[in-house]
């Protein structure tokens, strides 16, 4: 197929305007998604009670059995346990399906309920932000993120077509050239180097929430039966209570061992169950389900689940999925990144940062091109304020969320808000403040907000040291490495922000010194569409 200039032009305006319209949302998704790569490590930083080392192969019976034996369960109620891991050493215990939902964290050694830091942490704030934007009204957040994800795929495709010399762009970064040129170089380079991530993240993200976006059409092969579709995809079966007493499980560990042996033999690699469920405890139709949702040696997620009948040990259900569904589960598992590979986790983190850099430089380039072309100053100011708040503002706000966590105590309240709500409020107040600041400070906004990031990211490790005594070298003990690494990344972020601010100051000074001149005719693919 020959790519005509007409086609390239149409891809140019599609790339430019889709990027501008959705860049704020895309940056929020990429930034929060990047933080989510290490959400459990940030949790450790924000919740000191989770900074413990744990034996992940520890028997579960000493913790699980007392809960099952001591509890009084309602008909249809289910009990759920998440086994401890290196990244999340506490055991999650939840009861649902009854009149009251309960959720606690148990200490892996004592089995006692751990009094937790009253915080959403990264797992309940950064994590859901990247796929729902915390907009719950009619599921609107999911739809906005879904649309932005499709837009990201479109941006990737149109971006490829725009470039006449894609391989040359790959190797071109000229930081000494004028700001507009080096910004575009950086945009192209981060886009091309991290292209697999720019396609994988949105594609797998849409797949994870596919049943939100296409609930009816996906269930057509099941005759429109959504419950059947859900059961086929997830493997979850609802077991109704018989209403008659039945045997209690004598041991959960025996089922874990059996399930892991089956999966290990089936896959040819060591399996490790992560979730346990007991439906209808003490009922004749009680079922114990063992899951390997995120296997340490397996990328595909949610593929392994075996249910046993307590007493007889009979296998009630052995969930298996087909090859095509497995391919989809593989992509979804790659997005969740719960398999045991720190190298890949860091690679994803860098891929996410590359995505953030790509979006930010795309915005900067667009603005610099517009200023040269004499666009209305008010329009430029509006876009600049929005983009500064969307890029540097959300980074500063994320840091403020973490700083607030270290400054507040569980007893802190203000205006009826508890600690967890105050941390979230700190995020939104700082974020909103950055938009207002950007509106007032115009050209200086990006640079000044870089300094704000530098201060916040620099203060966070010091506050961590003061409030918990853990600081890099001291934190390099079992169970605390994640805290040390979080501190190191915060210090690196602070240093990067200082460098960014200084570079921007230099660029501003050069721009002020230069006389304003008419723009040269832009080469195709170099300047954004009008």
């Amino acid at each position, binding site marked *: 197929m020959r790519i005509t200039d*007409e*086609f390239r032009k*149409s*891809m140019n*305006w*599609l790339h430019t*305007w889709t990027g501008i319209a959705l860049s704020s949302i895309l940056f929020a998704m990429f930034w929060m998604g990047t933080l989510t790569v290490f959400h459990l490590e940030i949790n450790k930083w924000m919740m000191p009670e989770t900074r413990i080392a744990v034996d992940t192969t520890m028997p579960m019976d000493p913790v699980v059995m007392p809960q099952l034996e001591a509890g009084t369960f309602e008909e249809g109620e289910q009990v759920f346990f998440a086994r401890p891991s290196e990244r999340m050493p506490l055991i999650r215990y939840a009861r649902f399906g009854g009149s009251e939902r309960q959720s606690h964290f148990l200490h892996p050694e004592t089995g006692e309920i751990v009094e937790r830091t009253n915080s959403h942490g990264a797992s309940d704030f950064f994590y859901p932000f990247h796929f729902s934007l915390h907009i719950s009204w009619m599921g609107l957040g999911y739809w906005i993120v879904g*649309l932005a994800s*499709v*837009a990201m*795929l*479109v941006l990737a*495709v*149109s971006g490829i077509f725009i470039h006449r010399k894609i391989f040359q762009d790959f190797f071109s970064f000229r930081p000494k050239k004028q700001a507009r040129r080096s910004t575009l170089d950086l945009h192209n380079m981060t886009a091309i180097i991290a292209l697999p991530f720019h396609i994988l993240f949105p*594609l797998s993200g*849409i*797949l994870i929430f*596919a049943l939100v976006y*296409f609930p*009816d*059409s*996906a*269930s*057509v*092969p*099941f*005759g*429109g*039966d959504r419950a*059947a*579709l859900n059961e*086929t*995809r997830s493997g979850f079966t609802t077991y109704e209570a018989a209403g008659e007493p039945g045997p209690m499980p004598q041991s959960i560990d025996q089922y874990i061992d059996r399930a892991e042996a089956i999966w290990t033999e089936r896959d040819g690699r060591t399996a490790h169950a992560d979730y346990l469920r007991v439906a209808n405890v003490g009922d004749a139709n009680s079922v114990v389900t063992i899951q390997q949702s995120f296997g340490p040696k397996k990328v595909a997620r949610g593929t392994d689940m075996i249910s046993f009948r307590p007493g007889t040990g009979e296998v009630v259900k052995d969930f298996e*999925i*087909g*090859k*095509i*569904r497995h*391919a*989809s589960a593989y992509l979804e598992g790659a997005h969740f990144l719960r398999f045991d590979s720190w190298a890949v986790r860091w690679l994803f983190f860098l891929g996410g940062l590359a995505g953030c850099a790509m979006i930010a430089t795309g915005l900067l380039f667009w603005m610099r091109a517009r200023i040269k072309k004499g666009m209305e100053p008010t329009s430029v100011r509006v876009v600049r304020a929005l983009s500064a708040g969307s890029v540097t503002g959300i980074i500063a706000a994320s840091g403020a969320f973490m700083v607030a966590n270290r400054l507040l105590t569980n007893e802190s309240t203000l205006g009826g808000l508890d600690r967890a709500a105050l941390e979230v409020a700190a995020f939104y107040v700082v974020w909103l403040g950055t938009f207002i600041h950007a509106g007032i400070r115009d050209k200086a906004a990006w640079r000044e907000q870089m300094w704000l990031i530098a201060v916040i990211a620099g203060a966070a490790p010091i506050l961590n040291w003061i409030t918990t005594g853990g600081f890099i070298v001291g934190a390099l003990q079992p169970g605390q490495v994640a805290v040390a690494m979080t501190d190191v990344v915060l210090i690196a972020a602070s240093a990067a922000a200082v460098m960014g601010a200084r570079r921007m100051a230099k660029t501003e000074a050069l721009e002020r010194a230069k006389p304003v001149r008419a723009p040269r005719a832009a080469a195709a693919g170099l300047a954004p569409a009008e």
Partner: protein
Amino acid sequence: MSTMTLPQPVERSLRLALGTIGGYAFANGFIGSTGALLSRLGLAPGEASSIALLVGIFVFAGIVVWAAATTRLLITSAVVVGYALLANLTAPYIAPV
């Protein structure tokens, strides 16, 4: 109606609307009808649904690109809207259940 007579902002708005709204409807119809057809041909419903979803996402993105690039906006609109209507309406009748 010729697209040449439309002001550029209107034409581009139409293209984006066709790409997003039309693209979603097209992809939704594609997922339903392809899943139903594959299921009718003997593929397990879960597998049919999975492959239709996987391909459907690319189809959606493809329609957005097509709507932006087409030189015959009216014909493209007719194809996108026509297929979306046809596929969404007939998919349940193709399914074997």
